[in-house]
């Protein structure tokens, strides 16, 4: 009885993959738990084990094929029954069989245990030890070991990469100076930003927003009777809301650059830069376009506090489809931020200031906030970016639109 085996999701986020390597060929026998095929996903290469025993009748996909989860990839004969695999009496069969005893007698390398393992970060103790010694974070290192395990050589490669790009350290001691070793976070930020600035063709757009209405609106909301101090809305909360709505309106900006294409998200997860004692962190506000101002405000306060306390879990600051960075509170008027890869854009918000504006032919005083958009030119063209920036300005200048 022939059975068709379909490509399962080898990791929780996997939706498709590329066939990287077949461990077996047509005519080979395979037992439960034996490696069958390697599947390359956006992140890594995953090894798929055979869920049944049998003899391979045909491979339905070949190396290089892109396959969606659920597609049949191989057809097995004799699968499902207890029949032992057909054995070639001359050749290397004994070795395979020997594994089978192990499997049948006392060693069920069961698929579900394997599946549990898929979910966890795979890193060897030796690699972990090296990471510890170097003060490095594991993020960004792609494992090359079995099942995507990060092994020592992956860490070494990463180290070599960083080393080759950094200035040769000065060995002599400089009188009157102290060397503060990089923290893990610093090293991580450095690697990411350097990578981004080198690889992403940035371009920048500036725009000034007149936010007198927004300021008045905020003041009125904050002065409502019964409002507690911790419920006060900040300007930043409005900026977040505005950006979120703009991204909802123009989802083409809400995405990730990947080699194969641009990945767009249905909901808006926004990374918001927060300064912490260790450096910049970007906690994620999830599904922010569907949240009200109050909710945004509360969540943001909470995330920022936990970020400063160093309590964030990795999943709370990794990911997101777009980033917001606000340095207005330091008086900075405007700045040009570096994109947080693989995102395709980041919005920089400067300090609000009372300044003269030309209205018609008259000079008036207005509250002006300068915003800068950095975008990845590989993904976004100038006009599109301009339209996006204009959308943001509209929300900021007409705050009631934000409530719709």
């Amino acid at each position, binding site marked *: 009885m022939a059975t068709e085996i379909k490509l399962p999701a080898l990791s929780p986020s996997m939706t498709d993959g590329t066939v990287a390597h077949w461990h077996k060929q047509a005519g080979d026998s395979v037992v439960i738990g034996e490696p069958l095929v390697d599947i390359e996903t956006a992140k890594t290469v995953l090894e798929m084990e055979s869920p049944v025993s049998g003899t391979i009748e045909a491979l339905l996909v070949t190396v290089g094929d892109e396959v969606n989860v659920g597609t049949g990839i191989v057809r097995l004969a004799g699968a499902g029954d207890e029949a*032992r*695999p057909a*054995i070639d*009496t001359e050749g290397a*069969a*004994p070795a395979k*069989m*020997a594994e*089978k*005893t192990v499997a*049948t*007698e006392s060693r069920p390398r069961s698929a579900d245990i394997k599946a549990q393992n898929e979910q966890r970060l795979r890193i060897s103790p030796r690699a972990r030890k090296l990471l510890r010694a170097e003060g490095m974070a594991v993020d960004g290192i792609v494992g090359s070991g079995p099942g995507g395990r990060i092994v020592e050589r992956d860490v070494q490669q990463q180290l070599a990469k960083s080393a080759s790009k950094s200035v040769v350290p000065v060995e002599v001691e400089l009188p009157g100076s102290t060397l503060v070793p990089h923290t893990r976070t610093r090293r991580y930020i450095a690697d990411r930003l350097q990578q981004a600035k080198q690889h992403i063709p940035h371009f920048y757009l500036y725009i000034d927003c007149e936010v007198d209405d927004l300021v008045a609106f905020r003041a009125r909301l904050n002065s409502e009777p019964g409002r507690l101090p911790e419920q006060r809305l900040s300007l930043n909360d409005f900026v977040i809301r505005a950006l979120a709505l703009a991204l909802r309106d123009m989802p083409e900006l809400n995405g990730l650059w990947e080699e194969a294409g641009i990945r767009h998200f249905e909901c808006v997860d926004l990374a918001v830069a927060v300064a912490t004692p260790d450096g910049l962190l970007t906690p994620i506000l999830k599904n922010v376009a569907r949240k009200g101002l109050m909710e945004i405000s509360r969540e943001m306060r909470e995330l920022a506090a936990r970020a400063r306390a160093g309590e964030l879990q990795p999943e709370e600051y990794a990911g997101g489809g777009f980033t917001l960075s606000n340095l207005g509170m330091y008086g900075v008027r405007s700045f040009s931020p570096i994109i947080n890869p693989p995102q395709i854009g980041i919005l920089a918000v400067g300090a609000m200031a009372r300044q003269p504006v030309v209205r018609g032919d008259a000079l008036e005083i207005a509250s002006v906030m300068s915003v800068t958009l950095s975008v990845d030119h590989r993904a976004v063209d100038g006009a599109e970016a301009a339209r996006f920036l204009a959308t943001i300005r509209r929300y900021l200048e007409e705050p009631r639109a934000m409530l719709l």
Partner: protein
Amino acid sequence: MSLSPQDLKQLFRRLLLIRRFEEEAFRLAVAGKFSNYHGGMGQEAIPVGVCYGLKPTDNTMITHRGLGVLLTRGVPVGEIFAGLYAKESCPTRGRHPIFHMAAPELGILAGTTMVGSVIPLATGAALAARIQGKPDVTISFFGDGSVNRGDFHEGVNLGAVRKLPIVYFCENNFYAKSMPLEASTAGGSIIARAQGYGLPSELVDGNDVVAVYEATQRAVARARAGEGPTFIECLTYRWTPHSTAGDREFSRTAEELASWKAKCPILRLRKQLIEAGHASAEELDAVDIDIQREVAEGVEFAEAAPYAAPEVALENVYV
């Protein structure tokens, strides 16, 4: 209990079958067709004499020189050769030397290669018959090399104290591999040890098939009647070395071997049959030709048989 001329001719046929088989097996082993053949040429009268009068439900447990028992109790010639070749078409499918195969339907108990360890096992089979209330008798074969092992002592003592239906049957061929009996066995007599267990015993000429038959029948009758074990020692001699695996002859002299060859159990019976007028030389020669054909066919069968598939090695570790 007395044997008719017809019985005697049957005995002759069985003796000769073993001999012709042995000759062929020895030839094939020396030619490198298979490793390690433990021949028992010259000892044919014992298996034939013992097994001829047994019921199929009686148990026999044999040693590494037990070919004769297999043939006499009806294991096909071809299967035994296939076993020597370690081919699939034998009862162990090539996992274990053929002489330790099990054939419950022929009353052949699962054996073991360990010298002497079979004695407690056979005792257990007799114990089972007692527990189950069956009338079956067990014959426990062992060689002179076994009698100095603790298993012998413990097994025989247990059979004796429980009066089990078993016959302890020693095939004394005077050499345990290279070691002569007098150097290994204090007191110089195996049968003298029977007293130490309180067992009746008989010393039998192992090259006289009729004497072996009669002694066995007496012992089996005693066992079946609930009178307990009997200890039988048969004196005989193997004409061949311990085994064909890089074997070395020593200490045995040519004269000693010649003197025993002169006592060939087959020639002895042949002479007896002819002199008593039970059979003509031509009739017996015809039997011989028939047997030789049977043996040749058996070899052919084994040569043509396949080896077991490798995965067979992984089966049956557990039931």
